[in-house]
């Protein structure tokens, strides 16, 4: 009986998914004024995404009987994109009459697909890690696969960033949703569709074990992976056709990511909850601004940038050690509130050192602006536009590449540390401080080292950022910024570099791209944070150890994941 049901459900689901596939080749809009390709027969944009997700359905419902559960999330994403696009079309095209036959069929087929995926029996076996057969061509193919993965990541990033949203299209915020033209609206729907598509596709791939297999491959060919990712990051400006705005966003993501990785040393490795990390970033930024030769700076010196970045990192590290030395013996949340307090003291101090409420140093709430463009000894100015290989490179590309170098340095520092004796000692402290001390680890000194190193990296990132945004002002160093950095670390998955990178990208890009929601975007942002934590409390890309701990029946046992009531009893 249940066998029959399963069979029916599978047929129904495959049929539904196939219907969606067919629908993708039919026009989705009849409204004649509707811009974009929704009236055409060939799929593009959102229809392409729906098509790919539906293809997963047809293939796996028919060929891999036990794996239907892998499609639960994917089918939900398929239906969501179809419905979302239909809503946008009817909104722009004056009611449901604007919908074409394709859109209606896609929604109907999507419903069947979803119903089937959810009614099929669950299969909780972990997907196997796939390995290529041991042939002479294996290494070549594996290398190619790794390079392809880096390229795919770059392409996904370029597409996501490249879909013009209201802000990019017009260069300014709209006052009301109604002020956005139909054209913008299709862009917004396309960006949302793309996001949902990425989510659906990665769900399917990870449930099928392909993500884990790829992870194993990149680990095996780590050098190729590093080279390929670096290459992808370096060529990114060439894909932008001279668009400075997107490069600026990418550079800002870089700064944010560098700071998040630094924080990851403190929180993810050593397990010290720091709620005022942005203050160390701010120390670096203010130091760099003061010695940058800006006309708003009260310090009449202009140090070369290489010296600035080193000094900024050292000064910031000094603050870290000064704050850490007396306070690191505090436990968990007490340390958190002390760092929060330090962050607030920093913000208030730089806000007040304007000559009237305190000594004149930081130009108060206005901050130190007019930071001049960086120049290299050879006379190269970061403020110049360039043309390379016939492609326009606006000046933002120079700063972008500077960010790539910064992120690369911070990532290297993190990875080398994590694998070292020191890094293992940090993890031991995080897991159980008493046991770590008992094995002969000098916990106080190592905790101080983590805190100080985190501050050094933040200081370096801050000094670079001051030159990228050309201003250091107190508004950029609020508690909310610290909280967002921490959110990036936790969202991505604590204790990993790629997790922090992904978390930083998502947290920076999402509010930036949700601008069309105007006033509602922060509301949506807050709710999305809650939603992601509910769906994946261990983060989007957790370290293997954490993921395993988290799925053990007994739960994890480290200081940051103790079940309620256990932590300090």
């Amino acid at each position, binding site marked *: 009986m249940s066998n029959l049901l399963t069979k029916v459900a599978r047929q129904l689901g495959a049929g539904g998914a196939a219907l969606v596939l067919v629908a993708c080749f039919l026009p989705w809009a009849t409204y004649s004024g509707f811009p974009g390709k929704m009236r055409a027969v060939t799929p593009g944009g959102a229809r392409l995404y729906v098509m790919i997700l539906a293809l997963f359905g047809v293939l796996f419902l028919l060929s891999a009987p036990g794996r239907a559960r892998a499609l639960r999330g994917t089918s939900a994403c398929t239906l969501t994109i179809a419905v979302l696009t239909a809503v946008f079309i009817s909104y722009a095209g004056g009611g449901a009459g604007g919908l074409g036959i394709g859109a209606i069929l896609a929604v109907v087929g999507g419903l069947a697909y979803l119903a089937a995926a959810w009614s099929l029996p669950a299969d909780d076996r972990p997907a196997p890690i796939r390995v290529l057969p041991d042939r002479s061509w294996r290494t070549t193919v594996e290398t190619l696969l790794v390079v392809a993965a880096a390229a795919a990541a770059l392409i996904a990033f370029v597409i996501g960033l490249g879909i013009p949203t209201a802000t990019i299209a017009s260069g300014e915020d709209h006052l009301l949703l109604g002020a956005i033209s139909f054209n913008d609206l299709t862009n917004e729907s396309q960006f949302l569709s793309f996001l949902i598509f990425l989510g659906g596709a990665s769900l399917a791939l990870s449930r099928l074990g392909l993500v884990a297999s790829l992870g194993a491959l990149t680990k095996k060919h780590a050098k190729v992976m590093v080279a390929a990712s670096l290459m992808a990051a370096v060529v990114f400006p060439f894909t932008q056709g001279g668009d400075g705005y997107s490069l600026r966003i990418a550079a800002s993501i870089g700064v944010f990511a560098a700071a998040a990785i630094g924080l990851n040393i403190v929180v993810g490795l050593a397990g010290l909850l720091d709620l005022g990390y942005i203050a160390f970033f701010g120390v670096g930024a203010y130091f760099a601004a003061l010695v940058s030769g800006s006309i708003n700076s009260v310090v009449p010196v202009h140090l070369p940038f290489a010296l600035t970045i080193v000094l900024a990192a050292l000064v910031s590290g000094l603050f870290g050690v000064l704050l850490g030395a007396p306070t690191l013996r505090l436990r968990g949340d007490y340390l958190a509130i002390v760092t929060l307090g330090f962050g607030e003291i920093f913000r208030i101090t730089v806000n007040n050192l304007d000559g009237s*409420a305190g*000594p004149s140093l930081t130009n108060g709430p206005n901050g130190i602006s007019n930071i001049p463009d960086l120049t290299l000894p050879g006379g190269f100015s970061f403020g110049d536009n360039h043309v390379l290989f016939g492609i326009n490179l606006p000046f933002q590309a120079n700063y972008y590449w500077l960010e790539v170098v910064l992120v690369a340095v911070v990532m290297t520092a993190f990875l080398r540390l994590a694998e070292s004796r020191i890094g293992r000692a940090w993890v031991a402290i995080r897991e159980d401080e008493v046991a770590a001390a008992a094995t002969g680890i000098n916990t106080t000194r190592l905790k101080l080292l983590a805190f100080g190193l985190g501050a050094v990296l933040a200081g370096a990132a801050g000094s670079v950022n001051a030159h990228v945004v050309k201003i250091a002002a107190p508004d950029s160093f609020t508690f909310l910024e610290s909280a967002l950095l*921490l959110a990036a670390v936790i969202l991505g998955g604590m204790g990993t570099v790629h997790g922090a990178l992904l978390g930083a990208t998502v947290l920076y890009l999402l509010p930036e791209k949700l601008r069309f929601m105007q006033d509602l975007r922060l509301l949506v942002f*807050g*709710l999305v*944070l809650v939603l992601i934590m509910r769906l994946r409390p261990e983060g989007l890309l957790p370290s293997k150890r954490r993921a395993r701990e988290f799925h053990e029946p007994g739960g994890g046992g480290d200081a940051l*994941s*103790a079940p309620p009531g256990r932590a300090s009893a």
Partner: protein
Amino acid sequence: MDLFFQQLVNGLVLGATYGLIALGYTMVYGIVQLINFAHGEIFMLGGFGALTTYLTLPAGTPAAVALPMMLMGAMVVSVTMAVLLERFAYRPLRGAPRLAPLITALGMSIALQELVRNFYPEAKSARNFPQLIDPDKRFSLGGSVTISAPSLVTIVIAVVGMVTLTLFVRRSRTGRAMQATAQDPDTARLMGIDTDRIIVTAFVLGAALAAVAGVMHGLRFGQVDFRMGFLIGIKAFTAAVLGGIGNISGAVLGGFTLGLVEVMATQYAPEPFAGGAWKDAWAFVVLIIVLVFRPSGILGERVAARA
């Protein structure tokens, strides 16, 4: 000397507000070890709940009737929101890494602020709050030291609230169940205590006190703002830590200490670091100093290292 006593009174009034909110932090933390960052927003919602109640009352309702009604309204809004928060943002994450609920708390804090800003009528900037108690009416406390009527009411209500809560936790059956759950949730469960219900109770009590603080804040300053919960929330949490988090008397003591430090620093700190611009910085400096010398707060017990 009068100036000193005047500042003492001002500090106690400010501290009473911090203490009321800090109680909510400390109860929740004591039981589930969660920093409920959205608690400041519960305080803010209390202010708006009272305002809504006032606006629905017929014009000309005497203050003696309106004020209790507003307090009730504020509590209903705050408590409802706190229960929803616990149910949908915290409870599902109870077995998760401890930082996960911190992020949902943060997300809810942002979301609640934005909810009020976008959907409460005309709340994009501060909204006027009815001045039911004349702020210009001042009582003399000897010499030139005075206290305004709303401040006096704040202190009285705060003290009543704190005493009631202490009695409740010490004497009542539910209160003792809360203590047991805070000490050891597993054993408490074995003793037949419905720990889920106890956790909700902690949220409800905290929210009710925060709602009272929200109304008092509105009465004293004549306005409520969607942003008002954020900084006060952080400082109230600071007060809870200062007093020793998890300790109810500690939260009250921490609140008064923080209030006094802020007010006194504004007056007596060495130039140029005196004045309102530096008061928050002083509050945190004192926090750091206290924690360096008493790592578990003023009244906190020295927590034994985890075995």
